[in-house]
């Protein structure tokens, strides 16, 4: 009897916490379809006017484009460098490895305002402040640890005998990498890429410090909008971003399961 009450209690608490995590995201979805400009429920009528305003506004269009450019720069660099480093450091024990890993992971935990402030001083003399390239480089440094971590996790189950077998059959190192290693670690690389992209796509503090009006990114545009006067247009953008997040999350989750299956873990 006590066990049943405990079970019910535990379920109740768990579902409430899950509701706390998810419901706040869902509240803004209906308001973004409102025909009125006030931000409360219930909505007086359904309309797509805020989506129209969003998709026809040059400022929002520019911001979305900028975010994809910066995200692409950051992701390409982070994936290339992070994957190579993960392969190089896997099953490679040497003195000072813990320190090196600590250094490479540190962009994940250093307060973002410190990165922004440092970049603000560092990029100006290089002519990289107020440029999408500069922001992309800063974001690449923030995203690379995610690639390092996800690819390292995939490599944990990687049977090095596959690579040895290929090499013993005469494949050149690059061929071994391309034909054997890469296909096996691909899920880790792709989910690392997703993490790196989201890190950049969602980043606003460095963007605040490093961008001028022409380099405004989507989060920066939303930030300014929320600060000035939060309108249903912002909620329309937010709704699209939630849909985008769901797509990314499901992709990452699918990759994780596929990777576990490939490595025979699950």
């Amino acid at each position: 009897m006590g066990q049943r009450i405990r079970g019910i209690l535990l379920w109740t608490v768990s579902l409430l916490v899950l509701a706390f995590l998810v419901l706040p995201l869902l509240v803004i979805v209906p308001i973004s379809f409102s025909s009125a400009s006030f931000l409360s429920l219930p909505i007086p009528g359904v309309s797509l006017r805020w989506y129209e305003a969003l998709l026809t506004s040059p400022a929002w269009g520019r911001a979305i484009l900028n975010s994809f450019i910066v995200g692409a720069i950051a992701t390409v660099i982070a994936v290339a460098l992070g994957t190579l480093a993960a392969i190089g450091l896997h099953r490679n024990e040497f003195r000072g490895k813990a320190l090196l890993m600590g250094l490479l992971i540190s962009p994940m935990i250093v307060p973002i305002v410190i990165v922004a402030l440092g970049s603000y001083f560092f990029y100006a003399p290089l002519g990289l402040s107020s440029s999408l390239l500069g922001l992309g480089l800063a974001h690449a440094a923030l995203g690379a640890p995610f690639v390092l971590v996800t690819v390292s996790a995939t490599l944990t189950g990687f049977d090095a005998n596959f690579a040895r077998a290929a090499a013993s059959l005469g494949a050149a190192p690059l061929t071994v990498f391309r034909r054997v290693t890469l296909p096996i670690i691909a899920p880790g690389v792709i989910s690392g890429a997703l993490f790196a992209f989201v890190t950049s796509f969602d980043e606003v503090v460095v963007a605040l410090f490093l961008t001028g009006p022409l380099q405004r990114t989507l989060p920066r545009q939303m930030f300014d909008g929320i600060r000035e006067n939060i309108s249903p247009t912002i909620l329309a953008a937010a709704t699209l971003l939630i849909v985008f997040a769901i797509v990314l999350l499901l992709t990452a989750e699918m990759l994780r399961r596929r990777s576990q299956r490939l490595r025979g873990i699950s």
Partner: protein
Amino acid sequence: METMTAGDGRSLRTALRRAERARSLRGLGLALPLVLFTLVFFVLPIAGMLVKSVQNGPMPAIMPQTSALLQQWRGTDPRGLPDEAVFAAFAGELRTASQDRTLPELATRLNFENAGYRSLLMATARRLPEAPAGSWRDTLVGLNPQWGEVGIWAALGRASTRLTDGYLLAALDHRRDDNDRVQSTDASRSIYVASLLRTLEISAIVTLICLVLAYPLAYRLATLPESTANLLMILVLLPFWTSLLVRTASWLVILQREGPINEMLQWLGLIDQPLELVFNRPGVIIAMTHVLLPFMVLPIYSVMKGIPPNYMRAATSLGAPFFTAFRRVYFPLSLPGVTAGCLLVFILAIGYYITPLLIGGANDQMVSALIAFLTLQTLNWGLAAALGTVLLVITIALYFVYTRVVGTDGVKLG
């Protein structure tokens, strides 16, 4: 016993070690691009910030002679007004700086010492005669009596070195007085330590609430069949993947006066007037808890998944009531996850900026917001860098504890 030898006659062990070392070096070669990239685009900018926090400013470059003389003057005790040589050197270099248009830069630096010194310097430069009427000292005092006070000269003296501890002292609400003795700032101006303490306080509260909410959820997920747990885990991960600004915007809408929370409470008849939930501390804590909760659930869940259910069964079958078994067996085993989650959430929380800025009021701003304000609004980069340095030291200390307790392999994602 005969040692085994490789083809070239060396002992097998040596050959093996050589091969291992070559492999290790090749691996390091592969890691090198990321190491270099991180050093250049992450470590170097932060090192630059550390340097900025002790760099004094343009005074030694703009007024080299005055700076050198003021250094000597700072060595005298008791310290009266500087002598005529300092006044003369200063008047000469003030004119040069005014002609070279480097004066505004210097005046801005002096204004950080005392608001008002900027206009004092600029006005004096405008009205400075070609030659002194009597001594330079009388001339300058004639232009503005402030030149006859020790305060401005002490301020010039503090600005005359290449390196300074002034910004770091200021970030900890201390300053050097006219005799260069370290003193705490007046209570009315002590805002930086208060902001640091507030940051730590908010972070601690958020960490605690996250732990209380995450522990039962993680326990439920860890004791469910794998497939159900994975499905519910998606709900935990969804906020994790959603833009921070989206989540902040949602909370603004939910917590506002006409928001669903207030409407529901009014409908239930629990309140007559809408509650003020936004632009204050509870709003900040609720929103930050929401943002950071997944970072608490994930590490606790992954540790709990590794606890064999047999342990609890064994304890209860031996007669322990559920809560005793839980407290004595399960909870201690789950502690590594709790430690990892708490440290991670706390480390992430102390760097928060956007959420408190948009949802908090003036008294809920965390130290990051102050750093951004000093950098982008008042352009006091030295002080901004000093506050950044203090925040960085706290973070690195906590990160060090984290790697000791959890290890860098403990950083896992989903």
